[in-house]
């Protein structure tokens, strides 16, 4: 799998970098501290050496100085040089390591000097009576070397420790990330049908939210799959009944003894075919609504104009049944929607209202527009739907009791689905005179976006 960097690598690099940084910081601090301590120590040593020389020079008049000991001194001592200048002018005695020129211009006390390209730390002092100037110097690089050695001693273990630490960390991280890998294996090993929850008990605290969210997601997917499955089953069953009716009516026609009886049965065969066709059409509409994202085709529409158009198409058939259609739409009602879907919604609502209206009644459609958005209401004077059943009506394949109308129980589910796609709310209430059914669809205000 490609993607973000490995968690393990990030942890490993992060921890190792932090350890190395801390370690280097400690080494640096030690270096700085040790330099300061060393300077003081070596300065004291220089001053002491000078004092010893002066004591020796002052104690006897003999000009000879014992110099044999010098090479046998500690290795550091080789880096120490001294000069004795008679009256400060003539170089009387000097160590082998000392140059022939004066170490420092300063005659007394500590000073830094560069002689022939070599940096020195020098301490100068006069013997009693200013007979001789003693200068004791120490090469600077000697001090540097000591400091470097101290730092090296500090840093060397880091070089050894870091790889060891890295190895140990890698193992520990792998162990700690094991639950994640187990989870991935568990989920990876599933097929699309296995949606039972992942066990959350054993999961570490950090992984548990992930597992819980996953389980919630699984539950949601399972639920929607179950709905789909139930819908497919329902749809197949719903198709069986019209097919059974067609077959039975055809058999009745075949067995009919009279011409009128045969004609009647054949007429009902055709009606059954029409109903099966209508059912499959509605199933297709629903399937399309379920499958696609209609919002991509949304645009500005005028609900009032669409209502005028759709009701114009339906009015003749309604008139034939003795049902009047009235539209009340005074102003344009802009909505952000897909026009084709709005037509389906309106046709379904108005068609339902006409179907369930007894002859001599009216179906009233009202379109209003306000700041809050557009509102469509379709009311009839039919039998209505008792409040407890209103929620079920929106489910698929519900048919009102005792109706002889060849509806297939999908109209309102289609309306509900289209309303949901448009962010509109749908509610069922009593008709105007407390009788019949009023369906109200409220669309959100059309934004300019």
């Amino acid at each position, binding site marked *: 799998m490609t993607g973000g960097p490995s968690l393990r690598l990030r942890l490993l690099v992060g921890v190792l970098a932090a350890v190395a940084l801390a370690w280097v910081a400690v080494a640096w601090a030690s270096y700085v501290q040790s330099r300061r301590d060393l300077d003081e120590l070596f300065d004291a040593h220089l001053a002491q050496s000078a004092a010893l020389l002066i004591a020796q020079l002052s104690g006897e008049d003999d000009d000879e100085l014992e110099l044999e000991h010098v090479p046998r001194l500690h290795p550091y001592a080789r880096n120490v040089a001294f000069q004795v200048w008679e009256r400060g002018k003539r170089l009387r005695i000097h160590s082998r390591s000392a140059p022939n020129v004066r170490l420092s211009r300063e005659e007394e006390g500590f000073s830094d000097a560069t002689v022939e390209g070599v940096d020195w730390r020098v301490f100068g002092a006069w013997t009693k009576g200013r007979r001789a100037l003693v200068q004791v110097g120490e090469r600077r690089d000697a001090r540097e070397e000591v400091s470097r050695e101290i730092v090296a001693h500090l840093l060397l273990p880091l070089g050894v420790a870091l790889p060891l630490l890295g190895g140990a960390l890698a193992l520990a991280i792998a162990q700690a990330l094991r639950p994640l890998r187990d989870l991935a294996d568990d989920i990876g090993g599933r097929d699309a049908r296995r949606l039972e929850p992942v066990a959350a008990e054993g999961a570490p605290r950090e992984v548990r939210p992930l597992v819980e969210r996953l389980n919630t997601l699984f539950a949601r997917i399972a639920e929607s799959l179950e709905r789909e499955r139930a819908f497919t089953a329902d749809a197949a069953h719903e198709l069986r*009944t*019209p097919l*059974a009716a067609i*077959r*039975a009516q055809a*058999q*009745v026609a075949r*067995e009919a003894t009279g011409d009128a009886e045969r004609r009647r049965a054949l007429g009902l065969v055709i*009606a059954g075919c029409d*109903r099966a066709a209508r059912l499959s059409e509605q199933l297709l509409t629903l399937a399309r609504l379920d499958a696609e994202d209609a919002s991509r085709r949304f645009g500005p529409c005028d609900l009032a104009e669409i209502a005028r158009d759709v009701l114009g198409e339906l009015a003749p058939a309604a008139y034939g049944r003795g049902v009047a259609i009235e539209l009340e739409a005074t102003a344009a009602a802009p909505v952000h929607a897909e026009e084709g879907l709005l037509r389906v919604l309106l046709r379904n609502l108005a068609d339902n209202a006409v179907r369930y209206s007894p002859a001599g009644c009216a179906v009233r459609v009202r379109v209003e527009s306000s700041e809050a958005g557009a509102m469509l209401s379709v009311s009839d004077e039919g039998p209505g739907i008792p409040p407890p059943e209103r929620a079920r009506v929106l489910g698929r394949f519900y048919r009102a009791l005792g109706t002889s109308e060849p509806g297939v129980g999908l109209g309102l589910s289609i309306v509900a689905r289209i309303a949901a796609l448009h962010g509109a709310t749908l509610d069922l209430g009593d008709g105007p005179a407390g009788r019949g059914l009023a369906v109200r669809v409220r669309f959100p205000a059309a934004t300019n976006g």
Partner: protein
Amino acid sequence: MRVLVVEDDPLLGDALRVGLGQAGFAVDWVQDGRTAWIALRTNPFAAVVLDLGLPALSGLDVLRRLRAERNAVPVLILTARDAIPDRIAGLDAGADDYLVKPVDLGELAARLRALVRRSAGQASPVLSLGALSLDPAAHAVRFRGRPVELSAREFALLHELARSAGRVLSREQLEQRLYPRGEELGSNAIEVHVHHLRRKLAPEVVVTVRGVGYMLPKEPP
């Protein structure tokens, strides 16, 4: 034979009513469970064709109530639900048969005849009473070795009397068992058909019990 068809689909219900009528049944058709329940409590049906997905009261509820009241009327479930658990639930709730839509009307009629026959404890599909034999499937009657031509109504009356041979049935009982609710009957329809039966078979085949009703003897002469 009067059967009750409980089917909420108008087209299929109509087809069952007419189709089973063609097959010689007297059919009452109702479209919801509650009406079915009321009809079953007040009328003597020979069998019931029951859909499961019904408004008001589901088919299974009707069936359970029926069996809880010790009503043994044969029930054939006719439904779109074909899953094995549905079939098991239907039969276990007290159904005698289970058919899945769509169904052949001839098969449905045959199964109904079989159910009625079995509910009467009768093994042979042909009813034999002495010199009289009656084949409900073929609508054929033989008397003293000769075939007899009967109208559908006459056959239905003879069949009803034969099913209860040896027992007296009143005119009201016969009307209830023979004619669907709402059918226009003359007040003397039964008498007229009895008269025809006597003429076509023999006068002594149908016995009149004055003031009570009619009876077909178990061994007609």
